[in-house]
């Protein structure tokens, strides 16, 4: 059993950099590290990919988050059914044959889901990822599946150190409002704080959790900035000498 990586679009890092300046630091950089070399099955050409993998349960907004970061609906999303069956990526060129990839992972925890065998396969794939953005939802509180997945896929502190937890759907935490305001109300901010503390107690993440909303764009810039920060200190991306 393997995972196919399907590239939906190849662009240039300056596209991401125009939205989030922190990504401009990777322009002209080269990617080096074990497992980061990929071969295109159509052309046979090889290239190096620093991968930002989005992981989480089905319906937690992995595709929406990638779309929101990119600034356009490039990956298909669905309000009802699971749509990601493979690893869908957007690749951004840093230098010839060197890419930063946003990778949308198959969701876990759907009905009919075979946890352990899938999770072992994912663990292999994450070894070849530079950053893992682990998505949670502010408006749900069931953690049995996440606890098991986190322990199985990221067993030691070495793997856990590259996991960035992000709390999506902060606009849907109670008390919800249907006004178009992008920032949560003071009451919601209070509940978000409580939620962060709860999640911290349950999952014991290695780094601070980023609260945001892909739907309203709240704190998306902070998420982008943290992702860039994690990529920069991963040791996979090497900036050219000035």
């Amino acid at each position, binding site marked *: 059993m393997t995972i196919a990586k399907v590239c939906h679009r190849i662009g240039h890092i300056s596209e991401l950099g125009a939205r989030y300046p922190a990504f401009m630091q990777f322009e002209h950089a080269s990617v080096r590290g074990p497992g980061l070399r990929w071969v295109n099955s159509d052309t046979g050409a090889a290239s190096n990919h620093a991968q930002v993998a989005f992981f989480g349960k089905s*319906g937690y907004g992995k595709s929406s988050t990638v779309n929101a970061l990119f600034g356009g609906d490039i990956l298909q999303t669905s*309000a009802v059914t699971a749509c990601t069956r493979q690893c869908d990526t957007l690749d951004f060129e840093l230098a010839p044959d060197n890419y930063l990839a946003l990778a949308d992972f198959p969701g876990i925890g759907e009905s009919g889901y075979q946890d352990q065998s899938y999770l072992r396969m994912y663990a292999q794939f994450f070894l070849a990822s530079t950053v893992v953005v682990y998505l949670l939802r502010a408006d749900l509180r*069931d953690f*049995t599946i996440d606890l098991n997945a986190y322990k199985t896929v990221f067993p030691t502190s070495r793997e856990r150190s590259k996991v960035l937890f992000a709390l999506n759907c902060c606009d*849907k935490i109670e*008390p919800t409002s249907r006004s178009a305001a*992008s920032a949560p109300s003071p009451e919601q901010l209070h509940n978000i*704080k409580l939620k962060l503390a709860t999640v*911290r107690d349950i999952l014991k993440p290695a780094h*601070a959790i980023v609260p945001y909303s892909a739907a309203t764009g709240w704190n998306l810039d902070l998420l982008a900035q943290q992702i860039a920060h994690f990529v920069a200190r991963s040791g996979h991306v090497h900036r050219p000498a000035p």
Partner: protein
Amino acid sequence: MHTSLADKTNAEFFKRLAQAGVAITPEHKASIERAINHITGYVPKVGVFGKTGVGKSSLCNALFGQDVFAISDIQACTRNPQELVLSISDGHGGIKLIDVPGVGENSQRDQEYDELYKRLLPELDLMFWVFKADDRANASDQDFYNRLISPYIQAGKPFLAVLNQVDKIEPFREWNEEQHTPGLRQLQNIKDKCSAVAHFLRLPLNQVIPVSAHEHYGLLELVDAIVHALPHEQKAIVLHTIETAEDIRKKAALEIERAAVKAAEEAAQKLALAQKEAHLNAQAEALKEHEKRIQELQRQAEEAQRQAEIMRRRAQEESERSYISSSSRREAQRSLGSRILDAVERIPVLGSVVGFFRSFF
């Protein structure tokens, strides 16, 4: 075991629903009352199951029209089954609703609730499983349903799947807050979700009821479905052979594991004894001294680790707090930026106004 709250009830269901703006036709009311009148000689028990946080308690509260069950935005708060009698109309007919603690919080609680559900299920006359409409990570639901609920359905116990919080299904800003009805695209997504749930529970579509407790949407249809699904007379459906092949296999695996652990423990004990003897022979005192020092160093290292952990958590809390507080600052900066832009745009207008006044002089 059960906390009885029966005294707190008795708000008349139809009256309250009408107050909340739900239109009830006389025919509909009569049909529900007829069904209730057919249920004789017993107070039916309805168990409300589902994952934690899907709004089981909120749904029970909405059916009673008052906050009789504790709910929380963040924490799981139903730890023991709570029961309450729902009176449908004056004088006759009551239904006992049992709000059951939800699954999926963590595997330890899931195991406890497994036992609880096994004890509770035989005494129920109707079971329903509540889903959150905008959640599709349903592996926990499916696991409990297949193992515990499904055998009772096959044995003939009535069952309903309830899709709660349909007002939150995307696009969630399209919900009509005045009419308490879904937007067009929401309606389609609700229908699709009902089909998806019916499919994976292997149920007919009419046994999946979309509701929103918060918006009082679909409550009448839910009560209608409840009273029509209930048997007229009490039927005891108890599964005598709950032990399935799966259970037997699991039990065997557990026993093998236990035996292995026991063997390993015995071996370790023997090894420890042998080591002890060897140590006694060779410079017992010096070894003891050495071990003491190691222990002391270990204790110090653990203490340092504990301190480091505390510091790390404090740092995390601090940055999360700053994520929240900085977000409002960044919002404010953005709006200040747009105000400056507006001001710059206004400059040519100002220029022409100045020109206009100049022409007088």
